[in-house]
């Protein structure tokens, strides 16, 4: 079956200790969010290299979200503080290059915030879907 409307593709990097557990909690509580969201587990949000984000966009992702512990609660004490600086700088640069800023986001989700995780993903997916397909960031060569 050929679907005309392309579903958005969203990559979510979640830190193992807070946000990935928050996503699990959302599952435990059966809090629905779009299946467009695909989660990649990383030990800490500070493991997310800007290259991974650009790579996802290059391969056709429509939105990328990084989730980590709340500042001050990092399992590794300071990892998310570095994430915060790196992503602030990277996202600002993407915006500067004219790339829709709604396609990138950082959200702090604790292990107890299943509801926040689901709400965040619903909201993010909605915003990304509203933007339509990612044209400015994808590398045609890598598309199938």
């Amino acid at each position, binding site marked *: 079956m050929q679907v005309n409307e392309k579903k958005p593709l969203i990559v979510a990097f979640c830190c193992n200790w807070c946000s990935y557990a928050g996503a699990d909690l959302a599952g435990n509580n059966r809090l629905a969010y779009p299946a467009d969201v695909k989660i990649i587990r990383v030990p800490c949000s500070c493991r997310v290299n*800007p*290259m*991974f984000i*650009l*790579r996802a*966009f*290059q391969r056709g992702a429509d939105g990328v979200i990084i989730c980590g512990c709340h*500042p*001050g609660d990092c399992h590794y004490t*300071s990892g998310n*503080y*570095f994430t*915060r*600086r*790196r*992503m*602030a*700088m*990277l*996202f*600002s*640069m*993407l*915006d*500067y*290059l*004219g*790339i*829709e*800023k709604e396609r*990138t*986001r*950082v959200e702090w989700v604790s292990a107890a915030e299943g509801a926040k995780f689901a709400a965040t993903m619903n909201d993010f997916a909605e915003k990304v879907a509203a933007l339509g397909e990612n044209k*400015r*960031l*994808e*590398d*045609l*060569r*890598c598309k199938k």
Partner: protein
Amino acid sequence: MQKITREVLIEKAASLLNEGVVSGVLGWKQGEFAYDVTPALFTTVDELNEQFVWGDFCGANFSKYLVAHTRKTQSKVLVFLKPCDTYSFNQLLTEHRFDREKVYAVGIPCEGMADVSKVKAIAGEGITAIESTEEGLAVTTLYNDAPVVIAYEDALAERCINCKSKKHVAYDELIGEEGDVLESGRFDQVAALEAMTPDERFAFWQKELSKCIRCNACRDVCPACTCEKCVFNNPVSGAETKAPMGTFEEKMFHIIRAFHVAGRCTDCGECSRVCPQDIPLHLLNRKFIKDINTHYGEYQAGAEVGSRAPLVNYTTNDVEPGDVFERGEENA
């Protein structure tokens, strides 16, 4: 026009060579064309007298060459550093990239360097000779009989128009007078871009970056790009690339490159100088510098040895990534 003469520099270099203080001199050498000056290592006074040049096209920043050179030798090398070069010099020291003991740094004043693209735009192609005169650059081409005289300010490179500092932040010896850190308008263009709509910005960068031929000159000249192995040459990095094909390929390259040097880039402007396609690459670096200054406090990479780069630092109340845009819009 430079205030210091070639002879003064040769004299300094020759005496240090003769005294045995240094065994080599990193300096500028004439290339194929008048505007084509290349970095070179001089080991004898004769070589200096024959080939050493100093003038309005000697933009090359030698700091980076010290990484490879100091590994090869046990003796000292003399390096001439313009004020902007000294920042790169310090940044490399901060990153332990060369042995300070093996370098004899001579700070030299700089009146700003000429941009060959600007010269060509006025005088035309086919340049056969350029002479620095009191009135300006006298340019002879294949197609004109009398030299075209171009005022210095008309030929000045963008990075020199917006020179951030005439002060040397590192040297063993200083020739000429020490200058000051300057108030420059180097972020004006960044601010102008920020003030555009996202569509305009996208169009701007699409146009500029699609000119990229991935020659890697920007990376190869960059004093912050001294990696033993560049991620773009490394198959396991996930970023190894060859020629650009798609529309995002070169953006990825330039974003990653700018990000890798963010907080470490001293804004020396070499990337834009060497770009054969005249892409304003410095506008990427300056965006990071401007953002860092705005959100994390004023920081000049290389201003002092040992300072902690902003991206390997944090405070507990840093701005949230989502708020960076909003602030940007307020400014716009």
